[in-house]
């Protein structure tokens, strides 16, 4: 499946979301009047895929001949992310234990635990800053790649592959962080 082709957008590391959405709506209207269920599922799958950065990059690598097997490095944390990974592991441990206890708290118990919750929230905010800095750096990197993308060669593909391997982790951590911050902030 070539998601870019299905959505009729130019394959590149960065896509314009408004353009993507307009295209999606136009194609949805077209497909639905013809009642072809399988095609609709494919269109929706492609739309979902292109909205998610690591998945989009994976698809881009795939149409340029980099298969999933060549990306198995994703199972191992890339070197530049190793320290962050250790840090996050520790924080998740503390936060998850706290949240598990807090699941059945009464309002009064919640109030008694507020200081602890705020402390943990502070830790998460620090981490969020770190991840945001990392994310901004990576976004700049991707913008450079995006500009160069007109002429795809082995070097560029390799750069994108390495970027992808880091991005898989960053995206996952951002998502996990978001969920934990949300749950903690509901407590105070």
């Amino acid at each position, binding site marked *: 499946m070539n998601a870019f082709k299905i959505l009729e957008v130019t394959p590149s590391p960065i896509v314009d979301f408004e353009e993507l959405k307009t295209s999606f*709506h136009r194609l*949805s*209207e077209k497909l*639905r*009047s013809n009642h072809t*269920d399988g095609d*609709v*599922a*494919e269109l*929706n*799958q492609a*739309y*979902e895929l292109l909205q998610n950065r690591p998945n989009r990059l994976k698809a881009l690598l795939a149409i340029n001949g980099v298969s999933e097997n060549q990306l198995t490095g994703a199972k191992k944390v890339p070197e530049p992310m190793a320290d962050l990974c250790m840090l996050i592991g520790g924080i998740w441990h503390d936060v998850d234990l706290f949240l598990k206890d807090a699941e*059945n708290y*009464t*309002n*009064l*118990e*919640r*109030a*008694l635990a*507020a*200081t602890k*919750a*705020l*402390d943990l929230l*502070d830790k998460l905010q620090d981490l969020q800053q770190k991840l945001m800095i990392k994310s901004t750096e990576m976004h700049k990197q991707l913008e450079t790649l995006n500009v160069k993308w007109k002429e795809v060669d082995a070097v560029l593909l390799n750069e994108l592959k390495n970027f992808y391997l880091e991005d898989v982790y960053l995206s996952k951590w951002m998502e*996990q962080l*978001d*969920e934990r911050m*949300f749950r903690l902030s*509901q407590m*105070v």
Partner: protein
Amino acid sequence: MSDVIIGIDLGTTNSAVGVVDCGFPVLIPDHEGHRLFPSFYFNRSREQIEVGHVAKRARGARPERVVYSAKRFMGRVFGDLRTEDVELSYPVECGDKGEIIFDLGEARIGAEDVSAAILSKLKKQAEAYLNLVVDRAVITVPAYFNDGQRKATKRAAEMAGLKVERIINEPTAAALAYGLGRNESDEKLKIAVYDLGGGTFDISILELSGSVFEVLATNGNTKLGGDDIDLALRDYLCLKIEESLGDKLTDSEKALVLENAERLKCLLSNEHEVELSLPFLRDSYSYQYTLRRSELDKLSAEILEKTREHCYRAMRDAKLRVDEIDKVLLVGGQTRMPFVRELIKEIFDQEPDTSINPDEAVAVGATVQAGILSGQLQNMVLLDVTPLSLGIETFGGLMNVLIPRNSTIPTKQGELFTNAVDGQKLMKISVLQGERELAKDNWRLGELEIPFSAGSRGSARVGVQFEIDQDGILHVLARDTTTGQDVKLELKSAVDVSDDEVEKMVAESVEHALDDMKARQSVEVTMKAQRQIEAAMKALALLGDGLTENEKEQILQLVHRLQEELKKDEQTVSVIKQLLLELEERAKPMAEKLMEQALDLALEKKGVL
């Protein structure tokens, strides 16, 4: 097959049916002129089954034979129930395979049978009105219904002789009803649909642009609704009556109180106080009580507050800030309660839109969808989403998400599996729905058995395709890429598994299921009470001087009463619950002060204060 398609709202408390007539969706009244049909089922005798108004009226006299709120049990197994779920006036039991059974004397039936009887009656109502045979329908379900609950709804419709042309989500249906005729302009409108029904809560965020209705995100809870408020009010009133009477109430007396609780709750949406009057409740004993709206609000606060988090989650997932929501639509009878409207106003920072009828909007929307499918209405594009992430359990008990929540449906996703050892013939994988990272915290849809053509390790490859259709129901297809053979895989749920071992386990647990549940509830409440006593004492010690003597005294008194109750050999769960509620209420100023102190401390640490 007939050309006509009807739209049905199969609700927890009430149902309704509609059809497109001369280009307009209309709801079909019964012979008495009612457009709302109570979702009640009465087993009068072996031959005589009643549904609707008759069944509802029978509850007072024959509570043990009248099933209501059956929707709460659709697609669920007994082991999945909470203690509150079985506190009903009709007996809920565990069947041989762990399924949920209502024991109504001569008949032992399940939730699907009840739903089928209601659907069948609605079908007849439509046929009488149209003077045509009707066998196709669009049926609504709560947006947050999972795969099993949707399948059960579909089965019930088939039992009633209806082909389900589409299952649509209730909040989406309400938005369709609202958006019909408004889709002329090019203006983009972002709306939130707050749908609090009898048994379920949904919040959906949609974007309307031209003829495209796109659901951006949905969230909810299928175990939260107006029923919970009825039960809380019933318990509150029963306790008051028992105090005055000096004796326990019987089951049928409690059923009578419940009926009154429902009625009073509705009345309190317009009045500030109402009279509960039970003349000659027992022999010469009559009971009278003036119930104030503030009492009801207090009882409901904890239940209704739970909707807040779901709203925030939906907005977060839709990537919208509260000030970007243009309109908040109210759906479900429970949204008539002034307290609910205040809460919504606070969450969304705007007055909710009350232009649609909260009881009928879902049925009208189902009818609109039916009209679109049968070609009687213009083609609007409805882009709905799957409410829950779909995934499989991976090594280490984690959930690997294949299709994330809020993906537009229909959608599909493939996954490649390979044999891990030489000559492996089968691989079992668990399919899950939910948002938690650990597999065990999610809803287990069932197991898949992937067949491998024999070969050395890593040589057999089977591609499995997970597809969620437009009804939100999962289909699984497997293709052996080495042989090119396709197999349709059946998802085996706990109820389908006929393993001897499982059967034995279930049989053992069935015998004590209800007792276990009651015991568990008692333990849970006792533990909560002990924790709350501890918390109250700790809070008193921490705040000490910040409280008046009177405040301290009142809290200590409640703590003392709770301790006394806990010491008793025969504890009454409802009494402990009531005391806990009172303590929580009295402790509110303490909780607020503690929260303030914690926030001040945090600011101080940051050097802001």
